[in-house]
């Protein structure tokens, strides 16, 4: 029997066409899942992934009809919303899945931070997670701008002005984002390319690294006081047990998305008019904190605070290690700091929302 015949005999004809180590794949999928993940609220890491799948599918559908030019962008979104069969539903799913994804990423971040799951040896994965959050927020910002309505247009103008205030590189960054000295024709094309090309690529690379590192380090085990877990129960199988839980969450999310799309379908504001500044400019809610900070301080100070704050969060696992080594700060320091920081974020967000 030839070598090819032996392979075919063992795994079938198809395996001979794709000669990879299927045991490795099986091993990769058979990640031992720690006991605490039987509780569904620990499954928020998978939720953004599921929402990402929704975003990819609905995003591709929207791209079939969206026209990325200032003259036609608004009309094409209006046509998707009002004329295409199920266009409003696809667009609403895209809008709400995007919003929920940001919520889920924040919740995931909260859980990882406060349970200390970012600590050694998982510092790098924390940084990758933060990069994923940044990518997700940029997705939201660029996607909102593509509608090319008054608020999104002027939101983009304010955001690029903010970028301009970043020390040293701000001017270049803003010029790069706008494709010129002001938001215009080039900006829309750039945001479109970012939204459907650059960001998805970045997202998949970062997500691949994120999951790879999780797989290599294993999921952090969490032991609750007074909880009796036998040696056999410490881990359970990814497939089919954990995958079923995730699937169930996926179905529930689809229900939630559909309800949101039905009750609060994605609407349209006034078309963008570069000659007329609307009386109230608001970005999307996840940038409210930054917008309020801008109003409370100055342009440069608010940008500096945001950049420094972001850098501290990004490097926190390493900063904490250094603090513990040098000043022996207790573990609870991170918790207190995190509570203060997150409450600050919430206060600024709500404040901006209720301000006239």
């Amino acid at each position, binding site marked *: 029997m030839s070598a090819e015949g032996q392979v075919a005999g063992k795994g079938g004809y198809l395996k001979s066409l794709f000669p990879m180590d299927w045991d490795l794949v099986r091993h990769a999928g058979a990640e031992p899942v720690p006991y605490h993940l039987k509780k569904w609220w620990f499954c928020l890491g998978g939720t953004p992934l599921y929402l990402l799948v929704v975003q990819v599918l609905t995003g591709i559908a929207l791209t079939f009809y969206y026209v990325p030019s200032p003259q036609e962008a608004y009309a094409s979104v209006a046509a998707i919303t009002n004329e295409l069969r199920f266009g409003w539903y696809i667009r609403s799913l895209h809008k709400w899945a995007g919003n929920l994804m940001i*919520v889920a990423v924040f919740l995931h971040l*909260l859980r990882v931070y406060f349970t200390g799951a970012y600590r050694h040896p998982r510092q790098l994965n924390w940084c990758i997670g933060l990069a994923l959050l940044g990518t997700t927020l940029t997705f939201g910002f660029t996607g909102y701008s593509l509608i090319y309505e008054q608020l999104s247009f002027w939101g983009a103008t304010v955001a690029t002005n903010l970028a301009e205030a970043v020390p040293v590189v701000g001017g270049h960054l803003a010029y790069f984002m706008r494709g010129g000295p002001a938001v215009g024709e080039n900006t829309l094309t750039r945001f479109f390319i970012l939204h459907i090309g650059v960001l998805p690529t970045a997202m998949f690379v970062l997500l691949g690294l994120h999951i790879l590192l999780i797989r290599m380090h294993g999921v952090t085990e969490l032991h609750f006081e007074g909880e009796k877990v036998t040696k056999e129960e410490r881990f359970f199988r990814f497939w089919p047990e954990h995958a079923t839980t995730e699937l169930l969450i996926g179905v529930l999310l689809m229900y939630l998305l559909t309800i949101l799309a039905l009750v609060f379908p994605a609407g349209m504001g006034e078309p963008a008019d570069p000659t007329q500044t609307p009386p109230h400019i608001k970005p999307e809610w996840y940038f409210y904190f930054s917008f309020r900070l801008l109003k409370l301080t100055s342009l440069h100070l608010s940008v500096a605070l945001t950049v420094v704050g972001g850098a501290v969060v990004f490097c926190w696992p390493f900063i904490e290690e250094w603090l513990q080594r040098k000043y022996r700060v207790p573990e609870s320091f991170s918790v207190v700091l995190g509570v203060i920081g997150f409450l600050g974020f919430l206060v600024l967000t*709500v404040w901006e929302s209720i301000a006239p």
Partner: protein
Amino acid sequence: MTLNTKRYVVAGLSFLFLASLLVVAYHESKRHREEVKPGPIVTATNESCVSCHRKDSAALVMEWERSRHAQQGIGCVDCHQAAEGEIDAWKHEGVWVSALVTPKDCSRCHVREYQEFAGSHHAKAGEILASLDNVLAEKAAGMPSTGNIADAVNGCWQCHGAIVKFKRDANGQVLREGKENKPVIDANTWPNSGMGRLNPDGSKGSCHACHSRHAFESKLSRSPENCGKCHMGPDHPQIEIYNESKHGIAFYANRDQMALDKRGDWVLGRDYSAAPTCATCHISSYMTPQGVFKGNSHDVGERISWTLRPVISTKLNMVVYADGYKEDYPEGKPLPAVGAQVDTKEKVVENEALVTKTVPRKVSQVVTWDQRRETMKGACLNCHNDTYVDNFYKQFDDLVVLYNEKFARPAQQLMDELKNDGVLKADAPFEHEVQWIFYELWHHEGRRARHGASMMGPDYTHWHGMYEVSKHFYTEFLPAVVHVAEEKSAALGNKYRQKVETMLNQLDHNWLNGLSPEEAEALRRMYKERYNQ
């Protein structure tokens, strides 16, 4: 810190996060609701009207549908309802209605606006029916032999308002027609949306004059063109002057910055800043150091300190009575005390004719001309400083005084003397050429000059105004005075020739005899240097 504690921290923060998101979502959806214009609400009462009239007069219904009335569910019957027995009422498809919607009808909801308007100059616009203007339209440009007063009907009354009348039979009963017994309205008196229309229910005015039906858009009534329908032309060219002024130029360049369609109060210095419109200065709200000055009073004359309409301008004080009725008191006329009982003269319609009645009223407030001016200045001060505004008023006052003293008062005196000498008859206002010239001197040219100065229109002040006044005073009016006197008798001719000569020898007029050598040389040199002529 135990893992359980951390679990509670995560749960607590997560709930706070979600609660924050709900707060954000609530405010966003509220804001969205405010931005999205609600659609029309057709109530059961109006359903049958709308369903028929959507076919009979589709655009009318469409206009109503985009009105704020429609968004509040206020429809046809709410405004057009009438009571059985009212002169203009008929039973239409089972409902008593009237085609005529008067300020009294509007006052069922807009009480304050009705009361303010009722005391205003605008409400008295129909009283012109007993003026020289109306004589010209009905007599000079009318055909008394056939009763054709089409000039008055299509001209004067469309701005000033008509007395709304009905066709009557020999017994004086209102004629009715059709299976619904619809009253036959006198076509000379309606359609009419004149500002001071005299309605069968006793109310004065037409809200539609400014708030055009059936969309009733704020942006329309706040726009200067709306006032320009009537405030224009040779005798009161306010819109042309406004268009010429810096204010008008700023308005047309920045119309999209004016928030003209803003719902509710429209406040200068808060909602817009680009330019003032007619409404801004005369009736609207504006910001002051103490907060919003509530204008929007529907009394358009409230801030006016001069009257620029008569032969000789005078400053105007105002007496407000307990029932809201207002009277102008020209400066010099003794003002009553607050609380005093005064016999006021009010023009009302009785038996479809305008009559003057004496109504005793109690004085509740006296507003002097300078107080009225201060209210106007409040709007100016939103953009200009005290010195600027005070100096503007100085320039304006000086122009009015110049017109009054140099031309209007001497001309009026000559006309009075001609009457006293029996040259002119009091009951024949347009018998002689001098009467026409005099009329145009103050009613057209003199007003143009005064209005031009009041609203910063330099060309209307001078070339359409004072230049015309001067030219016609010297070259037409004075010769016509002498001419009409000569026609009466040679002696009267001599008398008036001497009067005119005496006048022309006064310092203000003797320039006609020639300039000084220095002035003449300066003129010659300028033309030589500038044009080589």
